[in-house]
């Protein structure tokens, strides 16, 4: 390629430029991952980096967790341009307003226009990272019971300038340092995001210089068209139909007693290559932190669709054109209005949107959709805080001590360590040893629980038990656990997973059940017990390959009794399949 504008790029040139953009976004992501300070960033990979066109269309995304990436950056970029109509080279903005496209206030974002020497705005880069703390009224970034944004207490930055002519605007940094717990950690993450955005900007300027801006803009148009065609082809494989599915979040303070039911109505039109997800039939926004921001509502619906079809379709503005969403203004899922709180917007209720959507997709036919993934956020994933007796310093961080949650899919058993559906399994699991160094805790147990999986032709993940407690101190732990009552359902005759739960073990070794949405003190000598659940199965368990059932029995995931009762597979004492009896059981 030379610097001259081109009318039309061929399939090879298209592939090469797509690769270049992908390379730049993954370079941004790599920088952020490896330099980030808070555990939620560098262990849960709770961050994202992407490149948008100057028209605010999503172009390229570094591989990061799904709930961050599909929608939101577009809205945030538009709000940047609205609030700062005269963008200059070297400007960057801090953005975390869920009322202007951010996922939730904990996701601080650096958004930076890529402007050439002539002053033309060509692209926008965005680096977003979940913070350990954002100055909420309580030491957690998921304030499940916040009546509104005021009780939530988060500092909200609707595209506030933090970089001018490549120099940081220190006023904003000083404000944050006075209102955010563990200010050094926040500042470290801020620098990591800034570094990531600057790397993206530098690389894009170099690319534009090398191949010519006109060629790049030709590329983006063609790349969107290509992606749209791939999407339309993928949808054409799905049987035509309309289906509704529901998924219910357990009740917590601020919600109705029966919890919050999300309804997703999906219509697939394979001839037109289009899918519609209708989320209008849902409750109004509520006085709690579970309301799902516009960004997360849209993204959750998209994930439900993309989890259900050919995974190789590129995810960008082009493929998203083929999904039509219907959202409710001021809905609990939809477009919540300021000052309602969206504190836990990326996880709890958003997961229910995905679950309902992918189960509705499963109704279209075998081979599509997925079971419900296990619920967030068990005490094994709590935000813990206190004073570390080893150095007398305060600490606050989110643990990722153990999770499973994966659901059965059309062609495969669960991916075991999904965490929750919006994370897509990208999260790391903490090393016990590392957590015991970082945090004054002792981890007594971390083990899978037999017979807790959602059974199916392809089974869900089993649940996991984690027991831990403070060492020589007391510890405050915050979590918003779902799935105690409304368990993850299976798809296409797959069965649900077992319930989640949470306890405290007292010094007298008695187990007390805790409220599922809690901020609790655990005293020295006490422990917190977390039962984080698995996911639902896909397809009738009595059609599961007997060899796979046998394998689960040998591995201690499924008992012989359950193999017989649920899967219809008889296993004899020497751990082999009793074929005759299995036939009998399965033909009954």
């Amino acid at each position, binding site marked *: 390629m030379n610097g001259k504008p081109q009318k039309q790029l*061929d*399939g*090879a*040139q*298209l*592939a*090469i430029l797509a690769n270049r953009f*992908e*390379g730049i976004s993954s*370079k941004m992501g790599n920088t952020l991952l*490896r*330099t980030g300070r808070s*555990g939620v960033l*560098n262990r849960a990979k709770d961050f994202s980096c992407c490149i948008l066109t100057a028209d605010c269309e999503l172009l390229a995304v570094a591989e990061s967790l*799904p709930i961050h990436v599909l929608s939101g950056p577009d809205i945030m970029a538009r709000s940047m341009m609205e609030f700062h109509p005269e963008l200059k080279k070297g400007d960057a903005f801090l953005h975390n307003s869920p009322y202007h496209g951010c996922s939730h206030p904990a996701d601080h974002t650096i958004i930076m226009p890529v402007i050439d020497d002539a002053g033309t705005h060509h692209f926008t880069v965005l680096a977003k990272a979940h913070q350990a703390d954002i100055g909420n009224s309580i030491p957690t970034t998921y304030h499940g019971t916040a009546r509104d944004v005021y009780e939530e207490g988060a500092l909200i930055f609707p595209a506030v300038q933090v970089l001018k002519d490549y120099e940081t605007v220190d006023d904003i940094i000083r404000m944050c340092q006075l209102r955010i717990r563990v200010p*050094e*950690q926040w500042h*470290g993450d801020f*620098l990591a995001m*800034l*570094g990531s955005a600057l790397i993206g900007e530098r690389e894009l300027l170099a690319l534009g210089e090398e191949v010519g801006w006109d060629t790049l803009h030709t590329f983006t148009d063609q790349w969107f068209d*290509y992606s749209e*065609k*791939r999407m339309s082809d993928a949808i054409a494989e799905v049987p035509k139909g309309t289906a509704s599915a529901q998924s219910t979040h357990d009740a917590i303070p601020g919600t109705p007693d029966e919890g919050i039911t999300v309804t997703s109505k999906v219509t697939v039109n394979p001839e037109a290559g289009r899918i519609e997800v209708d989320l209008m039939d849902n409750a109004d926004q509520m006085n709690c932190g579970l309301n799902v921001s516009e960004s997360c509502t849209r993204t959750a619906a998209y994930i439900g669709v993309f*989890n259900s079809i050919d*995974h190789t379709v590129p*995810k960008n503005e082009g493929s998203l054109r083929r999904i039509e969403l219907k959202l409710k203004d001021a809905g609990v899922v939809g477009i919540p209005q300021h000052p309602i709180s969206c504190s836990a917007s990326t996880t709890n209720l958003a997961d229910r949107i995905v679950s309902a959507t992918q189960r509705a997709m499963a109704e279209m036919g075998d081979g599509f959709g997925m079971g419900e993934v296990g619920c967030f956020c068990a005490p094994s994933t709590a935000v813990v805080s206190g004073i570390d007796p080893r150095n007398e310093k305060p600490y606050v961080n989110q643990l990722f001590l*153990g999770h499973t949650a*994966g659901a059965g*899919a*059309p*062609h*495969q058993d669960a*991916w*075991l*360590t999904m*965490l929750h559906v919006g994370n*897509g*399994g*990208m*999260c*790391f*699991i903490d*090393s*016990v*040893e*590392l957590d*015991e*160094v970082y945090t004054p805790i002792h*981890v*007594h*147990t971390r*083990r*899978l629980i037999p017979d807790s999986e959602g059974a199916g032709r392809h089974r869900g993940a089993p649940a*996991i038990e984690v*027991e831990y407690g403070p*060492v020589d101190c007391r510890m405050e732990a915050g979590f918003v656990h779902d799935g105690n009552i409304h368990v993850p359902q299976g798809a296409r005759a797959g069965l649900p997973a077992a319930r989640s739960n949470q306890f405290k073990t007292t010094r007298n070794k008695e187990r007390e059940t805790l409220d599922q949405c809690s901020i609790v003190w655990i005293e020295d000598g006490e422990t917190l017990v977390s039962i984080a659940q698995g996911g639902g199965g896909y397809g009738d368990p009595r059609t599961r390959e007997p060899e796979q059932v046998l394998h689960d029995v040998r*591995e*201690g*995931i499924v008992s012989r009794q359950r193999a017989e009762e649920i899967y219809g597979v008889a296993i004899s004492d020497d751990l082999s399949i009793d074929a005759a009896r299995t036939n009998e059981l399965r033909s009954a």
Partner: protein
Amino acid sequence: MRFACDTGGTFTDLIVEDDQCALTMYKASTTPDDPVKGVLDALSLAAEDRTISLSEMLGQGEMLIHGTTHAINAIITGNTARTAFLTTAGHPDILVLREGGRIEPFNFVAAYPEPYIPRALTFEVPERVNSAGDVHTPLDEAGALEIMERLKAANIEAVAVCLLWSIYNPAHELRIADLLEEHLPGVPYTLSHRLNPALREYRRASSTAIDASLKPLMGRYLGGLTERLTGAGFSGRTLVLTSQGGMLDAHDLAQKPIHAINSGPSMAPIAGRTYAELDSEAPNVIIADTGGTTYDVSLVRDGRIPLTKETWIGQPFRGHMTGFPSIDIKSVGAGGGSIAWVDAGGLLHVGPQSAGAVPGPVCYGAGGTEPTVTDACVALGYLDPSYFLGGSMKLDEAASVAAIKEYVADPLGLPVADAAAAIVSVATENMVQAISDITVDQGIDPAESVLIGGGGAAGLNSVFIARRLGCPTLIIPETGAGLSASGALMSDLTNEYRATFFTTSDEFDRDGVNGVLEALRAECQEFIDGPGAAAMSSKIEYAVEARYASQVWEIEVPLPMDRVESEDQLDTLAGAFHAMHERIFAIRDPGSVIEYVGWTATARCHLRDGGPGRLSAGEGHDVSGTRKVYFANAGEVDAAVYDFEKMMTGEEHFGPAIIESPFTTVVADAATRFKRSASGSLVMRP
């Protein structure tokens, strides 16, 4: 006389270095059922070439250096020992949960990996040491004895023992070892704190499990190799290459066989470093080794070969982590055999599918139907169909052209030549991305680097790769087609020792650190005085793994001292960390506390002085003056054809040109200048 023999997937490469340092290169077929046979076959070729008997030749040999894929193959094919995993009670799922993480979050077709050792062979030892190294729950002897009985009943062939915090207090692991010696005599075992004393239980457990599972097999293999070489007349020293880019005596490696996993490929950067130093001043070297199915990239930064902590067997998150640092090699599925295809949206892809060695590219005429990168190179005139592998294999050009037309040119609406050029361009871009990934990870700017093209197919597009990366110099060594084997001749006898000791820059524990460094020094010295006794020279290199407070990913910083005494030294250390962090990640945070986590010392015994020998020139072949080749920018041109082996030293040439040898073909377009240097390498300015 020294022998370097690298067993690869398809070929066993042998380089013989005679007493005048002249090199000769041979290739024999690899024999997967009995890899030692391939080694002996290659040696027999060398003996024939010298018209002496094998035993006569071996009798003159002082050293045989071996790179082997035996360990990695056993893991991939599931032929390792029936191994038990002994872990702390309450934590049975360390190998199941791993460290979480995933690639392709929307892909629900790829399966979650099975644990390296099944849960059914996992045993929970009633004990617990806490993070301070104190015994939280004493080892229950009765419970441990019961486990011994269950191991016997389960016919266990090897045992991996990894208990929490054994790195701070190994008493319980040591007691388990006593019990194993007593109750399961002769069954090999591995203790985690001895093998890999590193924080993070999954990585340590995984190392331990892999190592134990390889012990019976690698003990047999390395024992058999030594025995059969001796039987054939060899009385020299048998050394085996390690994943860390060094070598160990075969019987020492049999004690910790996990280090044999990346045995061969780890040598490419050693060779690349040497060849780069001979012909270039650039501080950094990028080494690309092109095979039939994979493209392996490694680096040299300021003379040092960077290691990665995350070595995966198989894909990240879908395979197993070795838990050991190894030479940082990025391997992507891109090679001569990568298949070109056009998707439903009209986008050209090259790979990741590969035609492999069988059936191979369409032009091999062995049943391949889909066009590959090699086919594109035939169609473009880069490869001479009658002089492939020195003429030992004829290529079917017409079949290549037909396949490209059907699968790529027609779907894209391009002429065949343009389609073939596009295939090479996309393959080039895939390779460039692989290089970009690893250089970014290690903070290296390709513009300040020299590119080394290794592997038989490297010359076909390395000029394009170098240009795209902005590398000012490309070097194709004369032994490039056997880069790993030639690296083996340059490598040192090395052993690495590690310790975990946590301290911070604001409360630096000098006595603690100096104690750790002294203990590591003593271990290195023991190695230098033992296996390294015959070395020309020896040295110990120290490094520390460090990070900013509350980061979780450490970076390795060479330690510019062997003790930390003064404030100045502490500042120097901190300065080195800040500089490395900025180099890799573009930012530094001088106000932040630095956490020092892991300490390593490497004993390096240099067995031989002098540079690499020169390849003895073969007979060469007659080359006609020019050949028609096609380039993406210039279209069809007449390219001068040169014989690599007969090129005059120092004479500058200009593209378009093709430079051929029996082992490789190098393509230079019109913008390229090149010459053969005194080292024998082709030095190119893209």
